[in-house]
């Protein structure tokens, strides 16, 4: 068929080209390829496009009746296998369908099931070893995906916005992202507290405000110098009274915020310094029209008792604010409240503003609730988010070796179906060292990740993209 060179069903071992001309042929006017539609899901985990169902009319034939039937059975078995896999049977491999347009590379989509129906003239046509006009129905993922591109790397410390330049591609494309974590030479290792990863398709969608810029200089909010804190200082909250809300100084918004209308999620990286009392925070944004947008008070997580070493760093979602297109922001401030008065109740190192959109992804790795494996005397440890669009039904977050061995899934919150669009993948990693796992571990780096030597860890972020297509090209 002019324009389409091949259409291959495969599980990696068995491959069937439905256009091979030996056992299979796609009938003229036998297929109207479906175009996936952007879904309306408000529940995450399945990407941006709906699954589709293809219906094809094919001929199946062979040199002998047995060869014809074997060709038919091969399709049927692959469809059955795809259905089993989609039903959660991990003892079988996933099945994909790959299409190759003339002059282009193959594009693939995972098959979720399907059926093969014999035509009414089945019995009559078997005398010539042919099934003429069988109906093949295939349920598949909506997007066609190209082969994985070569990994592109960049480096950044925690709290630093990074970006990776990519060749331009207009459609959202799944990304597998690795980032390296420090190695310790002691077997007891360490673990992170909450990590936050923000990814977007523009560095302008990720903005940072230093916590200390909100300090008034004395009294309730002061600036405190902390080794390896972002900017070298933090905002320290020392309320005079319990259960009283105090506001920081108002400061100018980060450059680019007031000129970027839209919905922005705002996170605070810091910690409440106790296992017992409760700190709550909110964000206030004042518009040029003197109107104030407040987010509800959010409680900082307390350090769970199972952790040693006192408090822990968290990335707290202060809220989502909508920046108007016909107004501008004059300043921002924080409101905080503690149910216990006194010095050093909470510390904020920095704020992250993330502009929300289909290609902005926010994921937390919440070791407040999920203690991940410790990091020991192993080189090349990475964390990974893998949408696994062709190999699994669900995306996964993992930790393990960069060579792919000894990986294990880790707990997370948020949508792991991460994508990139355009020419840039930008991100920020909000993370700090957590407590040691044993007496030999280390727990420095209160607000940003440091190496065992106490040096700020420079992580390598490595992105592998599969270009996504609604329409095969």
């Amino acid at each position, binding site marked *: 068929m002019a324009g389409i060179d091949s259409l291959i069903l495969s599980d990696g071992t068995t491959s069937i080209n439905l256009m091979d001309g030996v056992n299979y042929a796609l009938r003229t006017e036998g297929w109207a390829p479906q175009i996936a539609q952007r879904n*309306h899901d408000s529940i*995450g985990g399945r990407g941006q496009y709906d699954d589709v169902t293809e219906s094809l009319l094919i001929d199946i034939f062979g040199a002998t009746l047995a060869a014809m039937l074997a060709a038919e059975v091969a399709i049927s078995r692959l469809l059955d296998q795809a259905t089993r896999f989609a039903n959660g049977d991990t003892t079988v491999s996933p099945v994909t369908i790959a299409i190759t347009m003339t002059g282009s590379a193959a594009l693939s989509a995972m098959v979720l099931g399907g059926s093969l129906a014999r035509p009414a003239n089945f019995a009559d046509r078997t005398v010539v070893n042919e099934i003429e006009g069988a109906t093949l129905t295939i349920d598949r993922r909506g997007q066609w995906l190209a082969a994985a591109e070569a990994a592109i790397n960049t480096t950044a410390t925690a709290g630093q916005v990074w970006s990776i330049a990519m060749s331009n591609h207009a459609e959202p494309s799944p990304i597998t992202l690795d980032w390296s974590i420090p190695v310790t030479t002691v077997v007891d290792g360490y673990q992170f507290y909450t990590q936050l990863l923000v990814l977007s398709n523009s560095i302008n969608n990720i903005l940072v405000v230093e916590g200390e810029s909100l300090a008034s200089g004395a009294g309730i909010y002061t600036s405190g110098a902390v080794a390896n804190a972002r900017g070298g200082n933090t905002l320290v909250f020392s309320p005079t009274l319990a259960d009283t809300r105090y506001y920081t100084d108002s400061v100018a918004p980060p450059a680019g915020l007031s000129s970027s209308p839209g*919905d922005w999620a705002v996170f605070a990286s810091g910690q409440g310094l106790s296992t017992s009392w409760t700190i709550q925070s909110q964000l206030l944004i004042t518009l040029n029209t003197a109107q104030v947008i407040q987010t509800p008070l959010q*409680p900082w997580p307390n350090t769970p008792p*199972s952790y040693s070493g006192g408090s822990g760093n968290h990335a707290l979602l202060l809220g989502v604010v909508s920046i108007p297109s016909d*107004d501008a922001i004059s300043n921002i401030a924080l409101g905080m409240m503690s149910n216990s008065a006194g010095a050093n109740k909470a510390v904020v190192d920095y704020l992250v503003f993330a502009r929300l959109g289909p290609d902005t992804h*926010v994921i937390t790795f919440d070791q407040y*609730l999920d203690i991940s494996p410790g990091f020991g005397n192993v080189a090349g440890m990475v964390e990974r988010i893998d949408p696994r669009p062709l190999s699994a039904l669900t995306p996964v977050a993992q930790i393990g070796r960069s060579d792919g061995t000894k990986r294990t899934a880790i707990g997370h919150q*948020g949508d*792991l179906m991460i994508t990139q669009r355009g020419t840039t993948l930008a991100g920020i990693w909000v993370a700090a060292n957590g407590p040691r796992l044993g007496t030999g571990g280390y727990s420095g780096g209160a607000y940003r990740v440091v190496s065992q030597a106490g040096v700020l860890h420079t992580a390598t972020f490595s992105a592998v993209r599969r270009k996504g297509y609604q329409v095969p090209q």
Partner: protein
Amino acid sequence: MSKYTLHIYESDTGGQLLNVPASYCESLSLAWDMHGSADLTASLAVPRRTAYALYDRPATPRVTVAYCGSPIWAGRLEKPKITTGRLDIIAGGYWRAIDDRPYTALWSTQSLDQFYILDSSISSTYVPDMYNMSQDAGLLFSLKKNAVYPSGSAIAAFYITTPAGMSRTTIKRYLGTYSAKLPVGWTLDVQGQTAASDTTPFGPSIPSATIHAGTGLVVSSTFDVSPAGTVNTLLFRLYNNSGAPYTNTTEDGNFYVRITSVRVQGTASAQVRLSDIAADVAANLPDQIAGTASIWSTSFDQYEALYEDQRMADTLADMADKEQYQIGINLQRRMFLWPIGTFAQDWSIEAEDLAIERDLNQVYNANYATYQNTAGRILRTTRTTNAAAVLRWGITRQGVLETDMQNSTAAATLAAAELAESINPQPRTRIPVSRVMTKQGQTAPWHAIRPGDNVTIRSLPATVATADRVRTFQPARVQLDLERGSAPALSLETSTPLPAIDLILAQVAGGRIFI
């Protein structure tokens, strides 16, 4: 735009169940009420083997819903249901954990029903038959004519004892008023006992506190004692303490003691407050409550706060409601208590539809409270009328708040709070919302509204003169329904009044207002 994701954990502090990824979730309905996260239902397309693994967990799983990778709802898995190819779950917010165990504690009581006459079967030192004793109008003792009372024995006593198995406190304070006319040499005192009243003989005594020594004259006074030691039983005793037998030659009732307004507290504090009780419940009861977040001091003195085997969630909620406080459990499983509206945000909504019903029979624009004197007689506070509400409705409907209090001030305070709520009737409505905005009109996330926030309906007729007042209300419950392939559906349920909204709608229907 961001998406909502469902996550399930082994337990409150356990790891995530990674075999139930967010992508399995087909539909999700989550709600918040005044107590924090309320209820959640979800339907997951889960392989049957995974479903059974979740069904048969060794601990109670924790369920969260995240937005931007951060939890916005948290609770516990209460009811997993397995069907073909599907797992349906029902989860409840941690406020429900308050009811996991019953609560028994004496904080304060003025009830004479809690007092008993100590008879000889418990201790032969006590001979109530030699006295006239009753609890009809306070604790009343009087001497009988011609009775011979040995010194130091043949004691008369009323006692009150703490509930068995009480989780917190002993008797820390008692106070009251008495009127007495006793012969010289007679003593009214109060003695504490460590042991409960049903233990014989009683355990070590706490040194007694003399309330009154007889003079032969009528004396009225008060007492307020904070006993030292561990007091589980309190005895109000009357006895001959003269050192010699005493024969009463006067008529029955000539010599007497009447104790009224008696109050026994499990705390030495001047007041028994909801904030203290709530903090104690959080600290002593449920496994899943991690402590307190912010407990703001309440001011209302809880005169009757004696709990025996009580499930406290509704009790605490009612007490908070009466004081116009909000009590609940936050996402960190910590209890909060603060005045309603303290942290309320302002939102605007576009309502898809309005179907509101209000019943005149729920309107009360005047009221009073009933309370009791120490004799158990029902008394009534001064009737209070809200003139503006009477003018507005054109009729006066008077409500009654029945209390079992013995304090008229406290009863009147409650009545005033009740009146403030009832001058406008409770509309029964659930408002589907098509858009959530900040007060300034900027789009906000669907889940941004919390119960108790101030929500203004923008799509009511603009020709209504008092539109701003009419259109703003405080939802008592917020429910967000999510389903794959569909836009989110948000609905708000009201509790506090939407003043005159039905009247306006009726006017619209009647053609008096043109829209």
